[in-house]
């Protein structure tokens, strides 16, 4: 039915296009000049039909289910829901829904079957109403737009206005997303901070989120102190950056200035592959190869290395960041005008001198921006640490110890069934909020730098 509605809409919009175009063509037949080209008249009709009806259709589809649910629940016989909590009511609804879709497990109560039948009927009504709405609305708009076809009608401006509006709407999605993130995080985090004092969270040195899940226990003192988590994050990120930055930069320098064409043609795509490898793969790589290797090496040297060492997670993360940094640096170096390089070479500088004294300094702002973005990624990187780093929050900076990170905690706290009413779940949002704020700060700084730098040479 939904499909039919969409197809009908498409057909009617096309009809509108054809009708208006023909009408416009008819005007030109006697030599009258149109203000706008024929096809703009058509386009105007097409858009006039398409945009409002499409928006309505989407709204309808989005609201249909909640409303039907509400109606179904409201029409249940009195008393059946008495004494049920929120969760239990949801379960009832889910069961009714299953029944309405023909999946019957066991023997549901009769009222549930009746409700299910009502639900099916409601859906049928809704579908018919939807199709009717599409037909009527589209036809009305169609007639209205058809009437507007005259020689003077500025169909181009009218059509362009609609497109313009659509594009503005698109660009607000980005803002909505950010607002959504902030609202979602802040909302849940506030609920968390109602349960756990903010200062405890910020300055606490113990992170033991498993403790308070026992029913009767209030959040234990100090169990939600994020310091060990953030320190662990910092340790992992630092290891990653220490590995990635020099290798990435040297790679970029070599590729940009010294590499023979053939080599560059091979290395660049390969690095791109490295950058395109999903982080879950790196995580698997860490537990499959790197951690055992490290442990083996440690054993050989007589050093005890924990299985979830920060070194493994950080090291693999560093490898993941190499292509990120090298491609950023390569871009920044390439953005330095060739004229500068020629200028330096023409003075009698060697290629190395040119690179180190002219091109690299000129590209530094861009590179710094790139490195900062890499830091932000290192902090926010999830899968590698989820798979390779530990779960225990140790307040340590020893890279050979097991540490945990913000992202690890978020994921472990939220995997599995989640109820939004206990501090364990909500703590993840508090961590998420901190993570967001932290990376936001770094990103904004990095983007500022990069953008300033771009302006120099654009």
């Amino acid at each position, binding site marked *: 039915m939904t499909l039919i509605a969409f197809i009908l809409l498409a057909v009617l919009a096309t009809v509108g296009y054809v009708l208006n175009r023909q009408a416009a063509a008819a005007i030109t037949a006697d030599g009258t000049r149109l203000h706008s080209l024929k096809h703009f008249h058509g386009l105007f009709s097409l858009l006039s039909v398409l945009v409002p009806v499409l928006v309505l259709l989407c709204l309808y589809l989005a609201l249909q289910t*909640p409303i039907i649910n509400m109606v179904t629940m409201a029409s249940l016989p009195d008393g059946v829901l008495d004494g049920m909590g929120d969760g239990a009511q949801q379960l009832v609804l889910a069961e009714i829904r299953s029944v309405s879709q023909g999946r019957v497990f066991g023997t549901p109560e009769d009222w549930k079957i009746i409700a299910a039948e009502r639900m099916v009927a409601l859906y049928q009504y809704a579908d018919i109403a939807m199709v009717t709405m599409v037909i009527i609305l589209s036809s009305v708009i169609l007639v209205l737009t058809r009437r507007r076809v005259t020689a003077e009608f500025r169909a181009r401006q009218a059509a362009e206005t609609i497109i*313009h509006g659509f*594009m*503005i*709407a*698109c*660009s607000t999605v*980005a*803002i909505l*997303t950010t607002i*959504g*993130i902030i609202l*979602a*995080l802040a909302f*849940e985090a506030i609920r968390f901070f109602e349960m756990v004092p903010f200062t405890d969270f910020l300055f606490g040195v113990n992170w033991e989120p498993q403790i308070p899940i026992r029913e009767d226990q209030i959040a234990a003192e100090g169990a939600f102190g994020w310091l060990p988590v953030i320190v662990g994050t910092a340790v992992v990120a630092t290891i990653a950056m220490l590995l990635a930055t*020099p*290798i*990435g930069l*040297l790679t970029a320098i*070599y*590729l940009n200035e*010294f590499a023979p064409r053939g080599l560059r043609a091979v*290395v660049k795509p390969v690095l*791109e*592959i*490295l950058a*395109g*490898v*999903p*982080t879950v*793969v790196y*995580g*698997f*790589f860490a537990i*499959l*190869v790197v951690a055992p290797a490290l442990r083996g090496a440690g054993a050989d040297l007589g050093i005890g290395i924990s299985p979830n060492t920060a070194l493994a997670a950080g090291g693999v993360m560093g*490898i993941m960041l*190499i*292509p990120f940094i090298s491609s950023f640096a390569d871009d920044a170096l390439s953005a330095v005008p060739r004229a500068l390089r020629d200028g330096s070479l023409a003075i009698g500088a060697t290629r*190395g*001198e040119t690179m*180190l004294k002219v091109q690299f300094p000129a590209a530094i702002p861009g590179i710094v921006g790139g490195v900062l*973005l890499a830091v*932000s*990624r290192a902090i*926010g990187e*999830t*899968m590698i640490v989820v*798979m390779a780093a530990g779960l225990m929050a140790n307040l340590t900076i020893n890279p050979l110890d097991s540490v945990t990170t913000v992202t690890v905690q*978020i*994921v472990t706290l*939220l995997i599995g069934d*989640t109820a939004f009413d206990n501090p364990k779940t909500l703590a993840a*949002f508090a961590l*998420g909020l901190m993570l*967001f704020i932290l*990376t936001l700060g770094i990103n*904004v700084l*990095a*983007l500022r730098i990069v953008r300033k730098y771009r302006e120099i040479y654009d």
Partner: protein
Amino acid sequence: MVDTTQMGTPPRKTSLTHSSAQVARRKRKDVVLQGFGIAAILIAFSVLFILVASLVRTGYTAFVQTHVTLEVFVDPGEISEEGLPRGGFRDVLTAALLENLPEADPDEDARAVRNILSNGAQFDLRDRVVADPSLIGQTITLTAPVSDPFDQLNKGGVNRETPEDQRRVNNQEVAWFDTLAEAGLISTPFNIGLFTHADSRFPELAGLKGAIVGSFWALLTCFVISFPIGIGAAIYLEEFAPRNRMSDFIEVNINNLAAVPSVVFGLLALAVFLNWFGLPRSAPFVGGMTLALMTMPTIIIATRAALKAVPPSIREAALGVGASKQQVVFGHVLPLAMPGILTGTIIGLAQALGETAPLLLIGMNAFITSAASSPFDASTALPTQIFIWADSPERGFVSRTSAAILVLLGFLVTMNAIAIYLRNKFERRW
């Protein structure tokens, strides 16, 4: 204004062919720098090599599967037409196995012998008989996967030299297996099941179909949402938006979104889509929407870059002959920028395909044994499947994980190759 006094030092009359010590030193520095560069590249390359090599080494075995071929007598005593679904298929199979293992004691070892076969074999047999009840009472040839320990044994994953108590298969089981092998009943064909089966508790039965279908739905949703919105937003911001505080804010916003950790998007989806809007858990549709939010900044940025790369002179030219701004954009700029946009979109989708964390948070790591038939059904996706398998203790899942990774990388390389091809084919030098 030229002063006539000489420079501080008189012009050095040096020969071009004679290198002074100073020049030699400068050249050495050059060489050292290059050496560092090559070393850096070598490191990156060797890591990549190790990564791929270890994946291939552990993963290639998952592309074949050890099967055993048995002559099964569908014993009407065990299986009757009336009670078909609940028939004693397992016993029939066990009997068939015992037939081939004379040294095994039909009573004592029945349980152990039965374990040679995968748990899925009985369902295979059931499906065949249900489809064709006339088979009851006949002897049919059945090829079924062996269970994981024997699969490993066959592929060399189990070292026969290790002491028996540290092996997953004891000596007797090894002997049985060898007997079967000698009888020519063991085969290792290509593991079609890897692509046609959904997830399973049993490694030898577990396949990627559910994950691939889930990823497909998620990506489709992601594309349908992010592509038009991303392009619309990019065009507006690049070509139409007045340069003011607001557009600056949006720009910073988008760039920031591109760098926001993916797990945060997971949190967003969890709180908003699941908790507030009550959309179904584990649904690829929700995953797709989440991925769309993540991909959109990438598409917007790539589109803007592609639009920017179109020289302003083209715009001026079209404006100069009296085209409206939208005619300029949609008639000239956008077509020229399309290769760049498509490249960016494909790369964005490739990233989305590999994205794991947000999908974990919305529950796409559920254990689901059937492929989703619509984007609203619960499902896993390729990366989350990898995560699940990587977490599973069974030895057989290690190679399956690697295989799944290789499959995923295969998709990614394909997509990236398409992107690179597009970029090279349509790249324009202005």
